[in-house]
């Protein structure tokens, strides 16, 4: 079953290339001029809020929707208006997509039966696929006799048994409970490494996305907002939306006071903050956004020295979350900032309304211009 390790430098065309894709439903624009390239053997995640268009993009790649304009290339060839069964893709659905009148074996073997394979060959492949997803003892069960997690494993087996190049997963874990979802995430990741084909996975859950993804594309309001490696999306988001959707970021809005080449001074809630411009072009007086992840924010005494990497505020309350505790601080302009620290002790919490200073390292704050 080895398909060769993912090799991005080979002349092999990208698994999926989406060019200027738009999809309209009457007046509603589900996708707007989307461009994305997904390499062969990648685990690619489409992440975004519900109704943002990520599922529409996935289903257009799979051939379940026709694009209004633009095109989809699979393995370098335009698939035009080919129906799903004529594409090198296969799909794992959210739920309910197992054939209820067939056993696990029949479900998994169905695609091979359609392809006209010999019976013994089908049995062999089905056994192997079920072994890969750890369901060998459940072969004669009907779908309603399986738990939710097992049902999704059957779907996975049914998809990988076809040896298609590209596996599309439409919120495959959404119907599962939190613990099971975590376990299944890792299994998905290992399965993808094992079979080596391209996985494209749609989810609205960022933890799930971080666990499995090589690369992530953020999709919201029909736009592809940002695309990059999972770590970069988390640590160094480019767009305001990315910062607000991924991780727990403090968003500050302000105006450029002075821009001088590589760094800029931004007026935020009565403070002047210094930030790296990351090569973005900014002008004096331009409104901008700043983001700092909550775990990078620390709380200091109110009388600590003021600098360009801290801001004054008043303590509001703390929220104990088990592993971490979030301290909420209100800035003079009403913005709330969160400082998240590993929970150790409840002692020495400031009183509500106590003035204090919020600080961070210069490298942790990011500038966003839209």
């Amino acid at each position: 079953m080895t398909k060769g390790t993912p090799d991005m430098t080979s002349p092999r065309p990208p698994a999926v290339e989406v060019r200027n894709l738009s999809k309209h439903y009457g007046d509603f624009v589900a996708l707007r001029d989307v461009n994305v390239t997904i390499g062969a053997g990648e685990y690619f995640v489409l992440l975004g809020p519900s109704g943002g268009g990520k599922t529409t993009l996935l289903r257009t790649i799979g051939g379940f929707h026709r694009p209004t304009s633009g095109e989809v290339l699979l393995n370098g060839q335009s698939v035009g208006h080919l129906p799903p069964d004529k594409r090198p893709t296969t799909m794992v659905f959210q739920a309910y997509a197992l054939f209820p009148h067939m056993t696990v074996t029949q479900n998994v073997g169905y695609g091979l039966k359609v392809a006209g394979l010999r019976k013994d060959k089908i049995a062999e492949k089905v056994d192997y696929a079920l072994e890969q997803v750890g369901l060998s003892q459940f072969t004669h069960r009907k779908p309603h006799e399986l738990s939710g997690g097992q049902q999704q494993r059957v779907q996975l087996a049914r998809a990988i048994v076809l040896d298609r190049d590209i596996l599309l997963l439409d919120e495959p874990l959404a119907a599962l409970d939190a613990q099971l979802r975590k376990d299944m995430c890792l299994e998905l990741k290992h399965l993808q490494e094992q079979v080596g084909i391209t996985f494209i996975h749609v989810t609205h859950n960022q933890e799930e996305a971080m666990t499995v993804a090589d690369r992530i594309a953020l999709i919201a309001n029909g736009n592809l907002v940002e695309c990059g490696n999972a770590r970069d999306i988390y640590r160094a988001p480019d767009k305001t939306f990315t910062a607000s959707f991924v991780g727990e970021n403090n968003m500050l809005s302000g105006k450029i006071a002075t821009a001088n080449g590589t760094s800029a001074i931004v007026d935020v809630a009565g403070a002047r903050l210094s930030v790296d411009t990351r090569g973005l072009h900014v002008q004096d007086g331009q409104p901008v956004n700043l983001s700092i992840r909550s775990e990078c924010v620390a709380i200091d005494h109110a009388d600590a020295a003021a600098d360009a990497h801290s801001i004054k505020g008043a303590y509001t309350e703390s929220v104990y979350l088990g592993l971490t505790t979030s301290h909420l601080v209100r800035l003079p302009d009403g913005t709330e900032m969160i400082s998240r620290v590993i929970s150790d002790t409840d002692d020495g919490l400031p009183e509500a309304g106590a003035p204090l200073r919020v600080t961070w390292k210069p490298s942790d704050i990011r500038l966003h211009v839209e």
Partner: protein
Amino acid sequence: MNDYDNPLLHKLKWAYLLLVVTTLMTPVLYVMYVSFNANGFGANAYVFTLEWYGLIFSDELLIGALRWTFMLAVVVTVIAVPMALLAAKYYKSANNKLFPVFLLLAPLFVPPDILGSALLVFFKNLNLTFVWLGDLLGTTIFDSWFRLSFLTATIGLIIYTIPYSFVVILITMGRYRPEQTEAARACGANGWRAFWDIEFPQIRAGVFSACSFTVILVFNEYTRTSLLKGGFDTFTTVLISQMLNTGMSPQSYAMSALVSFIAIAVIGSIILFTMLRADSLSRTARAKAEPVMS
């Protein structure tokens, strides 16, 4: 039943329900009862006999009518049920649902005599139009088109039965998840194959019920058939003309009872079958699923 319902009241409600069903069935049951009496209706003494049933099967006219009825039922079913299936598929995917649903359910609301009369005059006019067309072209091949016949009766009965099949099939389709068709497409099946392998087995019960409904409806129908049939006779038309001409004879009791027996047997066995099947399915499912879920 809820835990705090009055159990006596609950039983009374059930009793009322069954009473209504029995009342609805009473005339039929009474006809069955009379049909086994050697002395016929209204006699003081009751002597059990099968004599009247014997008379039915020795009646040439009736046997011929039965044959026509059977053919009509089969032809109408073979055409109407697939059409209802197509219509239900269309309805599911249609954007504007009002038009198809109106068109397919309206025949339910049109009384038999009105539908029959309207179609009768329509077909007569259509036939005259074709005859006139044939005269213009100097041919007689159109002359028999839409003359009252097996064809016109079939069309009328399709119009009559399609709403029932449509509703029955639509109800069974309601439980089908369209994701399964998409999954089958993702497995490489084309549209037709996905329907046949995945969707059809799950709506088969609905399609079969629609078939038996259609057969029974056609078998029982009198008004539309008698208006549109042309030359031949069906079971009900023979029965009714006998009743209207000579009143209820012992033989017509036997005939009525016979059709009722058949209809009740068919529907009754469907009810029993679905009940038993659903019971056994849910029992095995529960037994198997429980260890998994825990």
